[in-house]
């Protein structure tokens, strides 16, 4: 296949930092000379709804949206959200899964149940799955809000680009107050072992 495009789907809940992480990712790809398109879907209020971001890169990208069955890497910040997008995945998709559960309103109200055993279900269908305790690692590096950066750090292992390109983009885009802790979070994500 000529001009192979790489498709990355990012999923989570509003407020978790998906938009920031997908911005870093696409900025880094552009800086590395790739053609990039990025597109988000998020609902109406400020927070709490399902959010996805599609990032596509290669020599020349047309559609900003990924086709079903064509995701190369899934970055997911919440367990339940992962299951919403399985139509987009293929057997070989690399799944980076933050081991974190956030109840949607219907579950909080006791009207619906939150499915159990999501990591096992995902792994059974998609062998290249890595489960990460993102919140735990983020706490360890000093700020639980850097979860999205921890997971991004791990994702970076699957993209052919030197670590300092990422660091440069973060230094350029993040406010200095939170830069250091994000660099640490990113690095901690990179330390986690990659799947084959």
């Amino acid at each position, binding site marked *: 296949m000529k001009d192979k495009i790489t498709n990355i789907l990012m999923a989570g809940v509003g407020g978790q930092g998906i938009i920031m992480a997908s911005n870093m990712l696409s900025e880094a790809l*552009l800086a590395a000379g790739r053609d*990039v398109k990025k597109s988000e879907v*998020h609902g*109406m*209020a*400020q*927070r709490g709804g399902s959010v996805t971001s599609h990032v596509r890169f290669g020599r020349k990208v047309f559609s900003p949206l990924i086709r079903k069955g064509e995701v190369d890497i899934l970055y997911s910040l919440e367990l339940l959200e992962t299951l919403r997008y399985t139509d987009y*995945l293929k057997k070989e998709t690399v799944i980076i899964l933050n081991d974190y559960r956030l109840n949607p309103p219907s579950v909080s109200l006791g009207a619906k149940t939150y499915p159990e055993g999501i990591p096992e279900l995902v792994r059974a269908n998609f062998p290249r799955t890595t489960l990460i305790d993102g919140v735990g690692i983020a706490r360890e590096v000093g700020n639980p809000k850097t979860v999205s950066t921890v997971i991004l750090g791990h994702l970076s292992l699957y993209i052919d680009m030197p670590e300092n390109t990422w660091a440069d983009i973060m230094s350029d885009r993040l406010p200095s107050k939170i830069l250091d802790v994000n660099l640490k979070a990113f690095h901690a994500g990179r330390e986690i072992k990659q799947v084959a």
Partner: protein
Amino acid sequence: MSVTHRKQLLSGNEAIARGAYEAGVLFASAYPGTPSTEILENLISYDGIYCEWSPNEKVALEVGVGACYAGARTLVAMKHVGVNVAADPLFTLSYTGIRGGMVLVTADDPELHSSQNEQDNRNYAKFAKVPMLDPADSQEAKDYVALALDISEQFDTPVLLRSTTRVSHSQSSVSLSEPDRTTHAGKVSIVKDPPKLVMLPANARKRHVVVEERMKRLREFADTFRENVMEINDTDIGIITAGISYQYAKEIFPNASYLKLGMVYPLPEKLIREFSGKVKRLLVIEELDPFIEEQVRAMGLETSGKENVPILGELNPDIVASSLSGYVFKESVPMEKPELPPRPPNMCPGCPHRGIFYALSKSKVFVAGDIGCYTLAFLPPLQAIDTCLCMGASIGHAVGIDKVMGKEGQGKVAAVIGDSTFFHSGITPLIDAAYNKSSATICILDNRTTAMTGAQQNPGTGKTLMGEDTHRVDIPALAKSIGINRVRKVDPYDIQKTREIVTEELDVDEISVIISESPCVLLKGARRKEWEVLSVDHDKCTGCKACIMLGCPAIGWDPEGINGKGKKGRSVIDEMLCIGCTMCQQLCKFDAIVKVP
């Protein structure tokens, strides 16, 4: 924004702002509305451009027209339904034409990501007889602003630049150009020109002739417009497309021949005929209405289109693929999935709106609703919104219902409207309510911002988009001057008091206004000093679920946990999300909600 890298990753909206800056725009106005809001939010970061949030889209266009009549290059931006509000000045602006270039950005929302309908605003171009450009990515979004302004000045017409959510909110790379901030700046002046600008019948009749002549010239121009491009490849199928649909089509049918239209109105008839002569069959791929397709058919050409491409919602590569029979899909991995609870957006933890909606839901009244974050109060458990039609409609609904119900309706009808929505188009219906002696109860939810679109300034906030301090509308004084005697303020966090006042005002047989006053909790300084994160004392919680009825995302139900009565099921508060607003605490009769020990 610096010009350090010549190529930048920009969203369509950022690119439109950049395009306006590069093309010498001096004046920009808008009312915030998804997906158009970021255009002006980005434009203010450039020097030398006056930018304002107007109270609504009609006003935004009218002030913009003033600037353009005075010779300034002008950009006005709004979401698709905003153009309905601005349609009145737009249609006659088409007659007067312009002095400085005028581009009106309409950001459509196929799929209704954040809108009440998915109207196709390309129809406005035809209806108002003005040209329309339709960019397909951020680069074009930027470039088309300059092109639109040139066309505007060349043909003495406003030009519509149409974006969609997918173009406005996707990012792609853009090459920046040197801005030209001087060529057009020198043209600002006051020039009287009544035959052109005073649209009395005698003048307007003559201007209509000008409009029709202009349309004729624009049709010819379209045939040579450099953004209407033929790409001849495999000639078995020729695809006519524009905007984002082009990208999906190229993804799926890389080898087909294309006529990509940068201008979707008027259409280049000669070019379309030429293209049709080069290919075996035509297919129009476009989102929403068969706008191009119908015109192609009217030219007497045979084409397929909406019989394959859906008229509903947004397109995507998969839909475009399925629109041509015989296309083979990738199989997705077969797997058994459990039922997935949906995750709709919700009002934030501690949102002040919950207090007033809790009171209204307890009163069991019919609540005419409006457009803002608070529309989400229609969701369970509050379920306290019964209508949502368009900006500012709630007060009118309440008056109408109250009138036909007569005595029966007494005490049963309320309206809710946010502060920004009230300034947008709630004031005239409030005048109607007072003038025509309605007895409805009007709740104005004043959270001192335009929260829904991400906290923009408005006439109630005391700040302009340019960051200056300014006058603030005094809502109680305004209501009084309209003739409303009963105007009361409530603190929505005081649940008991709020319920009492709502009950009292519903009971009186005259129009009354309740102002629920407390800032959106996302605003700086909105959280009160005494608020501390709360938690549930499980020994005291009886599992009665009273607190759950607020629908705060921070408080939830744990069906497995054992409550103070030794039974299954108790409330839990997520300490990461709770901001300590105390509303749930006030609802707990067992003092089970306490400060985190």
